């Protein structure tokens, strides 16, 4: 039989064995829920500067968290780089990650790191209302996110309920306003015929094309769109509205990292965490991915209010660990399966 031989020949050329890795062997495996385009340049820099070889696995944050939960202690991953705090919390809750040293955690404000020292934020993103400037004037913009369920926004709003950032925002609503008020808000979205999107990229694209008037998204998607169009955010029809006065709609969430249990004592893993919180990487988040640096002394992205200015709601991301209740409420409101 020739078939098995051919199969061996074909796969033999690309097969590569699994390398579990030893601490300090100058090799790291990173599971990234963040897009390759956003994080590869900075991981390449790390590799150049330290000589530590980084293997990166890219998928959605949810898929990555699910894979980690399935792999448990057999995971090849040393580091989990997550799009949002919720997934870090889920993996931490399952007991899969190691405690981070105090001096690492101290670089970042309390709000943006795990209270149990299990993960640390590396960059921040603000929730905003994106709007089309030809469809909505500045004086029509709502002062609070709760107003988007008013009749005047009927059929004009887009949301992405399966997105981790939206869920974190809903959890924040529950923390600030209670479950009853949150249920009212979610039911309001449904009865106000909010359009359900798979992700924020599509919401912002539709707003810019005039197919949708407003949408609840993270702030940096407008910058990504401008970059793709070869222009600046000023030239886009899609604009950002930062909810004022500590409104829940301006929640600041983080992308962050956790170190898997097996790499607890690995100096390479520690080196990467330090690097991501270092000045060079922090500048990268501000300048290339348009996110907020979380470490003092690095300027925020040009053209967006600073973390100090936007008056983020007083919410500790550690209080957002009741994701299961949030997701049940989102499902019950009929916003997602």
């Amino acid at each position: 039989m020739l078939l098995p031989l051919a199969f061996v020949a074909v796969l033999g050329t690309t097969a590569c064995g699994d390398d579990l890795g030893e601490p300090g062997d100058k090799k790291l495996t990173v599971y990234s829920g963040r897009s390759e385009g956003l994080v590869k340049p900075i991981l390449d820099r790390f590799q150049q500067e330290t000589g530590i070889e980084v293997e990166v696995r890219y998928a959605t944050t949810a898929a990555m968290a699910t894979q980690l939960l399935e792999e448990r202690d057999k995971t090849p991953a040393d580091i989990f780089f997550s799009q949002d705090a919720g997934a870090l919390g889920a993996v931490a809750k399952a007991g899969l990650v190691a405690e981070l040293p105090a001096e690492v955690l101290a670089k970042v404000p309390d709000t943006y790191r795990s209270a149990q020292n299990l993960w640390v934020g590396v960059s921040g993103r603000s929730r905003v209302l994106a709007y089309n400037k030809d469809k909505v004037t500045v004086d029509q913009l709502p002062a609070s996110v709760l107003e988007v369920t008013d009749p005047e926004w009927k059929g004009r709003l887009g949301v992405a309920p399966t997105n981790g950032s939206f869920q974190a925002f809903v959890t924040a609503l529950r923390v600030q306003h209670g479950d009853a008020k949150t249920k009212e808000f979610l039911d309001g979205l449904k009865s106000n015929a909010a359009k359900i999107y798979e992700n924020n990229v599509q919401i912002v694209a539709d707003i810019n094309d005039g197919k949708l008037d407003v949408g609840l998204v993270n702030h940096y998607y407008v910058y990504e769109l401008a970059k793709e169009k070869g222009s600046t955010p000023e030239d886009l029809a899609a604009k950002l509205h930062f909810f004022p006065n500590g409104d829940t709609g301006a929640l600041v969430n983080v992308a962050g990292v956790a170190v898997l249990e097996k790499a607890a004592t690995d100096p390479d893993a520690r080196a990467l965490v330090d690097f991501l919180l270092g000045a060079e990487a922090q500048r990268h988040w501000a300048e290339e991915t348009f996110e907020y640096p979380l470490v003092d002394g690095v300027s925020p992205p040009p053209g967006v209010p600073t973390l100090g200015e936007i008056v983020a709601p007083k919410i500790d991301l550690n209080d957002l660990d009741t994701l299961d209740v949030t997701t049940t409420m989102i499902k019950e409101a009929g916003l997602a399966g």
Partner: protein
Amino acid sequence: MPRPALFVAATGALAVALLPLVYLLIRTGEAGLGRIADEVLTRRVAELAGRSIALMVVVTVACTVVGVAAAFLVTRTDLPMRGAFGVLAALPLAVPTYVAGFAWIATVDGFEGFWAAALVLTLCSYPYVYLPVAAALAAADPAQEEVARSLGRGPWRTLTTVTLQQARPAIAGGALLVALYTLSDFGAVSILRTDTFTRAIFTAFNLGFDRTGALVLSTVLVLLTMVLLGLELVSRTRGARYAGGGPRRPATRFHLGRLRIPAVSALVAVGLFALGVPAASLVRWSIAGASRPGTLAEIGAAAGNTLSVSLGGALLTLLLALPVGLLTARAPGPIATLVDRLSYLAHALPGIVIGLSLVFFGIAVAYPLYQTVWLLALGYATLFLPLAVAAVTGAAVQAPPVLDEVARSLGRSPFVVLTSVTLPLMVRGIGAGAALVFLTCVKELPATLLLRPTGMDTLATELWTHTSTASYAAAAPYAALLVGVAAIPTWLLGRRTGLT
């Protein structure tokens, strides 16, 4: 091949196909009955099931109509440029639904919802019906039609009562693949915002990283598949098998007459909708966007990886499909039927569930294979075994068993008979199965993301990477290459419709 060896090999293949069900059973078992009831017995699930079934019915009926009509036009009429149309009608199979969905939503304002998804799914999957039906019509014995005509039946009654009856097993088999594919599709329904069961399963994974909820929902898809398999089985046993053997003669061709122009226009329109709209979108992406796809070396590496893992996936799938197909053809009976049906059981499950079940299998049983191309190839085999089983069974049924028996009576060993007589007779069918599985592997995304070796990019994963950051101009060349690579086996399949 001796019977016991055949049974053992077929059972082994079946075990691979049923890996996802073992995983589902273990994980939903952990959830407990209470949780299962809570998740499944809700109005929301009933609505989702209703919509999924409705979508499946609409798409399957539409694909059957388009697929059978196209197959009839290119094999049984005096349509001009039949050879070219024969290939053109197959090509939409090379377009992944996520590419077609993106293209349509960017082209037509407000293109979303149930009917939008139904249109895109029909355009991308009608070749599942067209290809086997065209092959069946081209191979069918014209004597039966001639007898019907000579006994006084008109041309249209002959078509419906004789010709289409001859192609019935092929139609039912193709329709089954379309129905199962529609249930499992995520690309079109997510982009065009239609809430189906599969979309809900993906959503459950995203919502709070709730594996258990997602897997409990998946079991409902398995139940739906069982019902479909039963229905197809009923239609198959009542269907006629066309007579084989004897010299092949071309069938008489219908003269289209005044219908020539409408027929040509219809085929051109399907081609434009299924291929033209995505092509125009990709060109627009490339021109409008500022992002760039990376170096030629990176693109080349992704294309090379796509080729090798898809080829590996196709070969492994074929290897597993052979004993199942041979069993059905050479040892028909309740066991063969059961094995054949069971090999379809996981086929409606979304790629992410199959992927996770292989992650589970890799972690718990085959750790040395974990995150190697071997486990990815096994994942493809689990996903696409039915496509290969259908092709192999068709070929094995048509290879006359009498030749095997003659070789055996002349003293050849069963294994020698298999390799020197049976397999060479089946080579065209095996080739068709391999081509079909290969092109489906090229398009696959969710399981590839979960199972690929860390750091290995394919065309599909690169396409996903770039679209997820709105870098459409960077994504376009990957999409075009992906469709191009998938088009090669599709073209071969189209050529094979028996026209030449």
